[in-house]
C-alpha cells in the first residue's frame, strides 16, 4: 500500500471508530505519560506515548475541521488545531492551579476527550447534513 493510502486508511480507522477505541488508546497514553513521569522518567517511553497521543488527536482534529484537504495536509492542520487546544487547556489549568504531573495528566485527558467529542460532533453534523 502507498504511503498516502496508508495514511488515509489509518485516518479512516481512527475517525470512524464507533467504539471509541482510539479515545481509550489516547487515555491509556496519558496514563503511560503519568506513570512514566512518576516512576520511570524514560524519554523513550515518554516520546513513544506522546507521539501516539499527538498523532491520534491531530488526525481527529484534522478530519473534523479540514475535510476538503489531502490527508497529509489535514494532519498538519490538525496538528495546528491540536497545538491550540492543548495550549488553551494547559493555560487554563496553569491559571487555576499549577502544571504539576497530575494536573498535566488531567489536562491531557480533557484534551483527548475534547478531540474525540469534536470528531463525534462533526460526524453527527455530517450525518444530519449540516455544513
Amino acid at each position, binding site marked *: 500500500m502507498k*504511503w*498516502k493510502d496508508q495514511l488515509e486508511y489509518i485516518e479512516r480507522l481512527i475517525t470512524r471508530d464507533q467504539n471509541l477505541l482510539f479515545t481509550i488508546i489516547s487515555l491509556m497514553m496519558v496514563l503511560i*505519560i503519568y506513570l*512514566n*513521569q512518576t516512576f*520511570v*522518567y*524514560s*524519554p523513550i*517511553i*515518554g*516520546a513513544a*506515548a*506522546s507521539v501516539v*497521543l499527538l498523532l491520534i488527536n491531530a488526525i481527529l482534529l484534522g478530519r473534523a*475541521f479540514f475535510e476538503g484537504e*489531502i490527508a*497529509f*495536509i489535514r494532519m*498538519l*492542520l490538525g*496538528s*495546528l488545531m491540536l*497545538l*491550540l487546544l*492543548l*495550549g*488553551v487547556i*494547559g*493555560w487554563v*489549568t*496553569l*491559571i*487555576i*492551579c*499549577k*502544571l*504539576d*504531573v497530575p494536573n*498535566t495528566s488531567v*489536562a*491531557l485527558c480533557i484534551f483527548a476527550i475534547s478531540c474525540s467529542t469534536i470528531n463525534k460532533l462533526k460526524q453527527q453534523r455530517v450525518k444530519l447534513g449540516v*455544513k
Partner: protein
Amino acid sequence: MKRFFVFKRIIYSFLAVLLLYACMRARSGEVYTVWQPMHPMVMPIFFTATALLVAIILSSERIEYKLLFIIIHSILSHSFFIIIFPAGSIGFQQIVLGGTRRIFDNTVLHGVRGTAENILILIYKWFGSGNFQSTYSVMFARMFSVDVFWSHLLLAPTLWGIFIPTITFMITKTLGGTEKVSALAGLLGSAFPLLIYLGAISVPNSVGYVFFLGSLFFFLKYLTSPESKYKSLMLIFTFASFLSHFLTGFISLSFLLLALSIKKYETDKVRSPSVAKFLLFSSFILSISILPFVLFYQRIFVPIYTSFTMDKIYRYTTTELLGQFLLGDYLYYFPRAFLIYIAGPLIAFTGVIYKLHTTRHQKPSNNTRICILFLFLGFLMLWVDYRILKIFMMNVPFNEERIWVFRDLLSIPFVALAINELPTFLRRIAPVRAATFLRAHKRALFLMFNISISALLAGWIAFSVNCAYPHYSPLQTTSYELEAVKYVDENTTKEYIVICDLWISYAGQMIVGSYNPRAYYFPDYDPRGVELFIKMKNNPSPEVMIEAMNYTNATVAYFIITKEKESAFQTRLGEEEYNRIIQEAQQNNLQTYKIFYYRGEERLRVFYHQLT
C-alpha cells in the same frame, strides 16, 4: 520518472542529514557566534540542499514529500542556535526559561507572577508574562519526559519550522496559487532574515507569530468561504495570538476588524457604495489606531509610560525624517543587508499592487480580489503603525522593528506568486521578435528558467540565513557556566544567593528559575545585583556576601567570576582583573568553592561564604 524522484528524495535526505551532522560537529562549549565554529562547507551544503529542494518543489513530485522536506529544511535553518550553542542564544529567551522553570518545578501557583494586589493586574498577568508559551514548554517536557531546558529551547524552532511553511502553503493556495507555487511559498519563509531569527529563539512573541499567521489564514477563509466554522476559527486563533503575546494579539485584532469590515463592505457596496466605502475607511483608521492606543493605555496595568510625542520630529533633520519615514531603521543598514531585508517585502508589495491592478475588472464577488484587497490594507496598516510607533511615540516597550515581522509574514505568498508570474509577465512585455524566439525555444528556456530560479532562490535563502544569525555577538552562555550553576545547586542544601554578572545570572535562572527564594540569582534589571557585583569586584570580602544574604534570608552566598580571553566584544572579566580579584579574595579569607576549566585552562571560579 518515479526512479528519478526517489533518487532526488534520497539525495535531499542525505544532504539534510549531512547538514545536521556538520552543525552538530560545530557544537561548542565556548562560542560567540554560530559562524565561528562552523565548518566552511556548511553553507555550500545548505545552498546545495536548498537548490535541490527548489528543484523538487518545481518538479511534479508528490505534495506530501515537498511539504515534508520543506518542514525539515525549515526546522534545520531555525535550529542553528540550539544546535551550536550550549544554551541557545543568550538573552531574553533564557529569562523566559527562568519563569518556565519555576512552573516546571511547581514552585509557583497560577503561572509566572500569578499573584497581584488588584484583580485587573492579576488578569493582565495571566494573559501576559509568557504563561501561554510556558504552558507548552512544561507540558511537552512532561509528556516527553525531558528537562524543560530542552523543550523550551526546541519549542520555537520546531513550531515555526512545522507551522509557518504549512500555513503559508495554505494561504498561497487560498490566494489562487497552484500546489507548486504554494509549496514554494512554504520554503520562501526562510528567505526573510527576520523570520529566521524570530523562529530561532524561544520567546512568547515567536509563538505569537505562529498563531497570528494561523489567524490570517482563517481571516482569508472567512472572506472567501461560506462555511460558518471559519468565523469561530478566526476568533479562536485571534484569542490564541493574544494569549501568546499582546503585540501579535492586537495586530490579529486589527486584522480581524479589517476582515469583518471588508465582509460588510462586500455585502453593502451594491446597496449604498459611498456609505460602504466610508465604513471601510473608518474601520481601516480604527484598526491602525488599535496598537498605538493600546500601548498608550497599557499604563493602567503596568508602569510603562508609552506616550505620543512630536520630539522625535524636531530632533531629526529633514533628510533624516524623510529617510525614517520612507525606510525606517533600514537607513542605517549596510547596503547588502538592506537589500536582503527589503527584497522580499518590496517584491510582495509590487506583487499586491500588480494583482490589484490586473484583477480590477473582475467581478466584485471574486474571492482572490477580496483577499488581495484585505492583504493590501493589512500591508498599509502595518506600514502606518510602524511609522506611528517609530516617529510619533516614545517609550514603546518593544523594538518597533518587530512590526516588520508581520509584514514579512504577509509578504511570503506574494513573493511566490510573483516568481510564478514572472515568465508570463516577461513574455507579455517582450518585443515581438523576442516573443517569437521565446516560443520557439520554449522547452530549453523553461529548463533554463527552472535551473536558474533554483540557484537564485537557493542563493537568496542561504544569504538570508547568513544575515539572520549575528556575525558579532557577546560570548554566549558557556558550558562551564552552566556546569557551575548546576554544581552549586546540586551541592547546596540550604537557601543560597549568588552574586554574579549578568551572564551567569542568565545561566542561573535557566537552571534554578527566576526569583527562586531557595536559589536566588538577581534578575538582569535589578540594580541591587549589579551594585553587589561591583562591590565584590572592588572588594571581594565576606562582608559584601553577608549583605547579599540579607536580601533573601539565605545562609550561604556564592560569588562567581568568569574569565574571558581578550576579544572585540569582551563581556566577562579580563585575565588581569580576574587574577586581581582572586588574589584580593584570598587575602580577605574568602574561600574558593570550585574552579572550572575549559580545555585545561581555568575559566571560572566560585567563592563562597556561609553563616555559622
